[in-house]
Structure formats: structure tokens, C-alpha cells
């Protein structure tokens, strides 16, 4: 059974004073996330990632479409007992300490007091907050808040964990820790669904990704599959300071000491080498550059974002 199934989930907001202007935050989305995988939900800011997550959590009601998590309907308390959620830039009751916060959330998730105390200690240890468990959250740094957020998301041992920008606000050490955490979750058989706009994190962790742009799904699949279709690039290094005109127009290049390093599209490789040979420039190396997710990303999403508000002439229901 898939962990998450999304059937045509759509959200249209009616904005403006008379609620006539429709803003389509999410076009009908169809998506399936398998049990036990780490799934990345990618896209630039404003693409509709958070809207999707909010609908899955029951915080926002879809305009149309439906979804199932672990085979159960959205809003079903039995389903909610088995999921964890870390919202974007979370803010918690700052008058509570981390321990009190987890105690509160644990009870709300239906955990028994006895096992709760032990679990809290374990989880605090896991996220590296054991030392600050008794400090009020208003004194926490951003990174510590993020970790507290992860703690409350995994406290009740959920089967599916939803993370919205889990790396935000973390320094490199923190990000490494979160990455390890996510890998551990997968090792323990959990499904992780996390959204981010940082592609390197996704590349490192995800089994599959979906790319969202302007409220629409632009691509979904394993990273290797996605990048295979994109034309690669090649890096050519030669000695000297001269850059032939042909190369200059198609490559990104930079000079250092007496070396020029240029990266250009794979298909132009032969023409470039020919240009260098004609000039008599000495070739040092030719290396294929691995297509990255970023290449795929840029290819699918194009250049500057257009306006995100799409006026819809016809009646739109909220």
C-alpha cells in the first residue's frame, strides 16, 4: 500500500475585496509516494509545496480532489496518530521548555505518560537537545528550534514524517545532523516526505522527487531517471589566456594564472575543441560534468518566474 496517494488535489484562493479574483495556488495534483521511501518535494518559493502540505495536514481545505495517507482519509484521527509534521519556520509556545512541549504534544498524540517520559529523553538525545531540555523555548536559537520541531515530529513514532524545509536556518553541522536523522528514519522503515528548495539536499537523500513550479507538477521520478534526459555539459581546460569567440558565446568560463576553464554544452564539445586547435591553444583536459538536479530543475522550470497570480475569468469556487 502506498504511503501517500494524492488524487487531483487542487486549491484556488479567492482574493480581493469582493472575493472575485481567483488565485490558483495548486493545479490538480496527482502523486503517489511509496512506503519506506524518502521523497523530495522540490520547487522554488511560492510553487505550492506548503499549500500541498497544509492540505494533507488538514489545515487548509482543498477546492477539489482528495488524498489518502496510509490508506486513510485526510482528517481521520487514526491517520493523524501515525504521521508527524514539521512546519516551515516553526514557532512553538515559547513559554514552555522543550520537555514540557514534548510532553504536551505526546499527550495530544495519545501517548501514555509512562512511556512518554522515556521517549522524550530518547528523542531529545536523538536531536541533540538533551542539555537544553529544561530551558524555555523563547531562549532557543533558530537551529535549536528546528531540532525541537523535528523532535515533536518523530516523538510518537509515526509511520510517515512530513517535513517542510527541515534544513532551514541550520548551519552545515546542523544540516548534516538532520540528514543523518532522515536517513535513520528510512532505516527504521518510515516514509519521509520533505519539501525543500535546496537541491543538493534532495540529491543526497531522496529516492524520488517531484518538482513543482507555479502550482503545477513539472516532473516526478528517481533523480537518475530525471537527469538522464537532460543534455550534459563538459568542462574543457586549456593553457593560455585567450578565449576563442565561438567558445565565449556558449560557455561559462573563468581565468586563473595562465589557465582557462570553460564549461559548455556537451553537443558543442567538438566545435569548441576545433576552435582551440585552430588557434593552436594547448589542451589540458576535457571532463564531462555530471548533470545535476539543478540542470534538470532549470530545464523544467525555465527562467524568471512569471507572476504567480493567474486571473481566471470564469467562476472559481474556494
Amino acid at each position, binding site marked *: 500500500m502506498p504511503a501517500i496517494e494524492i488524487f487531483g488535489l487542487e486549491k484556488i484562493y479567492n482574493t480581493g475585496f469582493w472575493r472575485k479574483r481567483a488565485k490558483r495556488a495548486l493545479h490538480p495534483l496527482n502523486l503517489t509516494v511509496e512506503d519506506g521511501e524518502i521523497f523530495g518535494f522540490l520547487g522554488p518559493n511560492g510553487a505550492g509545496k506548503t499549500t500541498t502540505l497544509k492540505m494533507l495536514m488538514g489545515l487548509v481545505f482543498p477546492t477539489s480532489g482528495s488524498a489518502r495517507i496510509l490508506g486513510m*482519509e*485526510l*482528517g*481521520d*484521527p487514526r491517520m493523524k496518530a501515525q504521521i508527524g509534521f514539521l512546519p516551515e519556520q516553526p514557532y512553538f509556545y515559547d513559554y514552555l521548555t522543550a520537555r514540557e512541549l514534548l510532553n504536551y504534544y505526546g499527550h495530544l498524540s495519545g501517548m501514555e505518560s509512562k512511556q512518554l517520559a522515556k521517549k522524550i529523553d530518547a528523542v531529545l538525545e536523538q536531536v541533540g537537545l538533551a542539555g537544553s531540555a529544561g530551558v524555555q523555548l523563547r531562549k532557543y536559537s533558530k537551529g535549536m528550534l528546528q531540532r525541537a520541531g523535528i523532535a515533536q515530529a518523530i516523538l510518537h513514532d509515526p509511520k510517515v514524517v512530513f517535513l517542510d524545509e527541515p534544513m532551514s536556518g541550520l548551519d552545515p553541522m546542523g544540516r548534516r545532523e538532520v540528514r543523518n536523522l532522515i536517513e535513520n528514519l528510512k532505516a527504521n522503515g518510515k516514509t519521509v516526505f520533505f519539501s525543500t528548495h535546496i537541491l543538493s539536499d534532495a540529491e543526497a537523500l531522496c529516492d524520488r522527487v517531484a518538482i513543482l513550479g507555479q502550482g503545477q507538477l513539472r516532473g516526478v521520478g528517481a533523480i537518475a531517471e530525471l537527469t538522464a534526459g537532460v543534455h550534459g555539459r563538459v568542462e574543457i581546460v586549456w593553457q593560455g589566456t585567450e578565449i576563442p569567440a565561438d567558445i565565449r558565446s556558449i560557455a561559462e568560463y573563468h581565468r586563473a594564472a595562465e589557465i582557462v576553464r570553460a564549461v559548455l554544452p556537451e553537443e558543442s564539445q567538438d566545435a569548441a575543441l576545433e576552435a582551440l586547435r585552430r588557434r593552436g591553444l594547448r589542451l589540458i583536459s576535457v571532463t564531462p560534468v555530471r548533470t545535476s538536479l539543478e540542470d534538470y530543475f532549470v530545464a523544467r522550470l525555465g527562467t524568471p518566474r512569471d507572476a504567480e497570480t493567474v486571473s481566471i475569468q470564469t467562476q472559481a469556487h474556494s
Partner: protein
Amino acid sequence: MILSQRINIIAATILICGMACAAILIRTIDQAHASTAVQETLYISSPKLLKRLSLGYHGLFADIYWTRVVQYFGGVHSRGGGTYNLLWPLLNITTQLDPHLIPAYEFGGTFLSAKPPNGAGSPEQAIELVQYGIQNNPGDWHLYYDLAFIYYDLKDYRHSADAFLKGSQLPGAHPFLKIMAAQMAEHGGDIATARMMWTATYQTTHDDMIRANAAAHLRALQADEDVAMLEQLVQDYRVRTGRLPQTFSELISARMLRGIPLDPVGHPYELEDGRVFISDPQDLPFVQKGLRPGYIPSPVPKLMPAN
């Protein structure tokens, strides 16, 4: 999401039933509250303090207190009279908060001086109230009328005529004030005067209770006149035939009456041993003639709707 549908239905039901029950409970509380002595305490009894506390909104507060006057009076009255202890303090507060609330003076003038169980029976307070009103509204002739009425009730015909005269001198005064001044000076105690006074009140007042009161007085006057006139006819009959008539039919046969005489509320008069009686004196509260010996008027004067 059947769960949330169920919650919505439950919530909507509680909302509607709750508000309905709340309204019913309010009515119950109002009724229960009114019959206890709890009502008899004024929250704040000093008009000056109240004026200061009202933070400049004394007009509104005067209006609120005025509605309380009406409710209070109506409540006590419908429960059979008793004491109207709070009438004076309430009216005092009302007029101190808004000295230009003319209806308050008319109401106070009438019901402060009226004898219990119809009113508070304190004419001195009534005079004080109306004079305060005149002081603050020197151009309003209605107040002089109210004052004149109080004095008339006290049978102080001189002061009554005085008030009518002063009132008649104001610009825009109703012409009958001058007429009444003269009438009162010469014929203060006559029935004709009484009839003029009550008719004037009946026609000029906007207050339902005062109008009902005036109508009752007029009916009583009519009944008194009728009884006097009928008894005179009975005596004439006796002189003519040497004996007392047993029924009114005999008077009709003798062409002294045109039909069975009816009192102002439509019931026929009764003839017994040469005396004329009213069949249902309860319907004619202020009547003085035509009452059987030993008749005690009910404590609650039955003020029927004015017609």
C-alpha cells in the same frame, strides 16, 4: 469527512437550541426577578453621582431611567398598588439627568399626587417636581397645566387658577388655559370644571396611562350626573303619580325616559326603592354616586382602555 459533518450538525443544534433556551430563561428570570423585593433597591441613588458617572452620556441614562419609571409604575400598579416608594427617586434622577424630559413631569405630576392605590399620594413631591420642570423649561405651557391640575386635585382652586393664568401668558399657549383660569377662579368646585379639566387632559396627553386615567374620571363624572338626573326623575314621577316607580319601564311609559338608561360602560342602571344604583361599580372606579351602602372599591382601580 463524515466525522466533521456530525460535529457540524451537533454544533448547529446546540447553537439554535441554546439560544432558544437562553431566551426562555431570560423571560423566566425577568418574571421571577420582578416579584421580589430585589427590585426595590436603586443601584445608585444620588443623582449628582450618577450624572458624573455617566461620563457625559446623561441624556441616554435619563432615557434609560425614564423607561424604568414606566416599567416600575406599571409593574406595581398591575400587582394591585401598594407603595410606590421608588417613583419619586426614579423621577428625580430622570429629571436631574435630563431636565428637559417633559413627559416625565406630566407623568410625575399625575401619578405622584394621585391617591393610592392609583399613585404615590404625595402631592408635595409632585408640585416640587413640576416646579423644577418649569424652572428648567420656562417656555413650556404644558407644565403650568400639569401644575394647575395638581392644585385642582388638592382643591386649591386659587393656586390652580394662578397656574392657568401664568401658563396662558406664554407664547403659543393653548387658548383653553385662559378659559380655565377664569373658570377655576369662579367655579372651582363644579362638575363642569371637572369635566373640562379631564377632557383637556384626555385630548392633549400622549401617554396611554394618563389618557386611561382621564377617561375613567370622565366616565365617573358622567355616571354621577346620570344617577343624580335619574333620581330626580324618580322624584318627579313620585310627585306626579304618588308612588315610586318599580322599574324604568314605568318611566318610559310615562314618557319621561326614551329607553332603558345605560351607564357609560354600557350596563343598565338599577332602580331599587327609589334609589338608582350602578350595576357594576368596579367598572367605574372614581364614581361617587349610585353606590350601594357598604360598597368598598377594589384596591386596584380598573382603568379600562380609553375610547
